[in-house]
């Protein structure tokens, strides 16, 4: 008797948890992302605006920290419970698309007359896989050169560096040791992944060859790039060895004059009250114009009924059309019309970052990017920290990357 009662209770509970159709045909769609920082609050505002302007659709946003985000999305897509709209980084789209987990958006783009010409051409490539569109880029977040205005002024520097020679000359000036033995640096490597890939790309190298079939790590170009990084540390002595230094904290506390970080770090810097900073495009270190970048792309699951699909697409469109609000929170929009707007031109930091949009460089759009990326990072780290010689580290990285690529 009692067992039956409990069973009945459980049944009622389960039924209660399932989503019911809202009042008068409202479609409720779920939207997942990993914006657990200040960007989450910005996105929440945009979602609220959308819900107000579109009473027939109700978007429920769920923020899951990036550390566990992809596991949750993967499981949702595999076993049900996937969200109707979700964010994927550009470098992860090919992997999900290749397993047939994402819905193609080409028909929706055609029907809703989204103009490809309004997108920055370099960014339009993000979200494409095997000639199909599987996710729409919402933003682009390249590296930029953040610099400390006060340290620059004290050292008599009038403008941010643009070339390698200017960069070294600029970085030398604020580099010194104070009376208490505390070091102040002209420059510091923060995230070796993005900083290192920018150096590699500028010398014409990268993780993979252009056809994505082989590793491009074990090349003279990579060695040139890494040698330049070592030169900044050991010969010019304008940059601390990355090992054990929290360079970004150093920049925030005014002990590092320049650092290359993503635009998404802007809101964190704005909270640092006594920091007077500005931004500029990343200097030209090598012969090729390139700077590391990523994009948040908006995707939908392959399994989705047409009503939800329509609603989801309407929401994606809204996000793209209103990405000026998203830009304010520390992002670069990818629509030329928005980039040209006065509102965007009035954002001094974002505007500087956006000057690089013609030559931003994504990580290789390989199905196995997530598996191989770690090998490249480990090699760069080992070389600049002098743990291994460049030739040995790069040979090892290449072998491991090729091994992963060769698997069926």
């Amino acid at each position, binding site marked *: 008797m009692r067992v039956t009662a409990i069973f009945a209770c459980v049944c009622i509970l389960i039924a209660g948890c399932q989503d019911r159709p809202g009042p008068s045909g409202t479609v409720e769609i779920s939207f997942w992302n990993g914006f657990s920082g200040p960007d989450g609050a910005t996105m929440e505002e945009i979602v609220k605006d959308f819900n107000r302007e579109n009473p027939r659709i109700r978007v429920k946003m769920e923020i899951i920290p990036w550390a566990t985000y992809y596991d949750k999305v993967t499981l949702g897509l595999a076993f049900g419970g996937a969200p109707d709209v979700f964010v994927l980084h550009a470098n992860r789209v090919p992997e999900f698309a290749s397993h047939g987990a994402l819905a193609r958006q080409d028909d929706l783009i055609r029907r809703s007359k989204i103009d490809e010409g309004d997108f920055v051409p370099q960014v339009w490539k993000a979200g494409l896989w095997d000639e199909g569109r599987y996710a729409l880029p919402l933003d682009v977040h390249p590296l930029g050169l953040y610099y400390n205005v006060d340290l620059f002024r004290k050292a008599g520097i009038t403008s941010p560096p643009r070339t390698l020679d200017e960069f070294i000359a600029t970085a030398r000036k604020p580099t010194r040791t104070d009376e208490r033995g505390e070091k102040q640096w002209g420059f510091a490597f923060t995230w070796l992944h993005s900083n290192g890939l920018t150096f590699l790309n500028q010398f014409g190298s990268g993780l993979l060859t252009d056809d994505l079939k082989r590793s491009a790590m074990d090349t003279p170009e990579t060695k040139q790039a890494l040698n330049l990084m070592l030169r900044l540390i050991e010969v010019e002595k304008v940059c601390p060895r990355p090992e054990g230094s929290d360079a970004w904290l150093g920049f925030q506390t005014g002990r590092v004059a320049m650092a290359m970080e993503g635009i998404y770090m802007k809101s964190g810097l704005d909270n640092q009250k006594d920091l007077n900073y500005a931004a500029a495009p990343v200097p030209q270190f090598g012969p090729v114009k390139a700077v590391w970048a990523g994009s948040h792309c908006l995707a939908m699951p392959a399994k989705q009924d047409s009503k939800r699909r329509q609603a989801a697409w309407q929401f994606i469109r809204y996000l793209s059309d209103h990405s000026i609000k998203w830009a304010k929170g520390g992002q670069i929009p990818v629509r030329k019309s928005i980039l040209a707007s006065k509102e965007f031109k009035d954002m001094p930091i974002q505007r500087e970052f956006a000057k690089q949009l013609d030559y931003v460089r994504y990580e290789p759009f390989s199905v196995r990017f997530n598996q191989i990326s770690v090998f490249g990072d*480990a090699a760069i780290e080992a070389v600049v920290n002098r743990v291994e010689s460049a030739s040995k580290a790069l040979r090892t990285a290449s072998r491991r990357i090729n091994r992963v690529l060769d*698997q069926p």
Partner: protein
Amino acid sequence: MKQRRHTLTAWLFLMPFLILFSTFTVFPIFYGFWISLHRWHVLDQTAPFVGLGNYGNVLQDDLFSIALARTALFVLLTVPLGNLVSLLMAVGLNQRYRGQAIYRVCFYLPVVTSVSVVAVLWRWLYSTEFGLLNLLLGVKFPWLSNPNWVMPSLAILSIWWGAGGNMLIYLAALRAVPKDTLEAAEIDGAVGLRRFLSITVPAIKPAIVFCFVMGIIASSQVFGQTYILTGGGPNY
């Protein structure tokens, strides 16, 4: 009849455990083995059977042997030293003095703390620029980012974290050492270290063996602290 009733009762008592154990331990073990025989991706509709191919791949991968060697080194660093620390703490707590219970609680406290809390705490202690450890020592030592030092650093953390657990077992064993044997040894003139090595250590040998075996098993499964503190780096 009565016998059968007893058996039935026993099974009923065992049932809750057995159900959970087979659902969450036995079944996943066999299911995991089944998955390992396929080229499996959670998002794919099909998973082709590859036999022992995945195992062959692992054996060819030099990262596998690197991982094995690193784990073995970690076990070597933590188990003997960790047990020594636990035993010394237990011997110290086995003396009679005031506030014994408080010390016992303090030493045991790290054991009940979750791995993420421990790891975040030690990240602050080990931080090169702002760490308490470097502040006290007056140096800028890269505890976690130097490939040669990261292992000892992780071992220190793990010993601190786990020492309390074994301490409790050793303490119980020390309490159980027969008093008359200790007295007899004293009458024969064996005191201090001599008495400890000849009487106490042989008497608590089962506890030592137990702690070593459990320690080796636990250390071989190390994951949390390394994952949170270094993310697997530097240099694997």
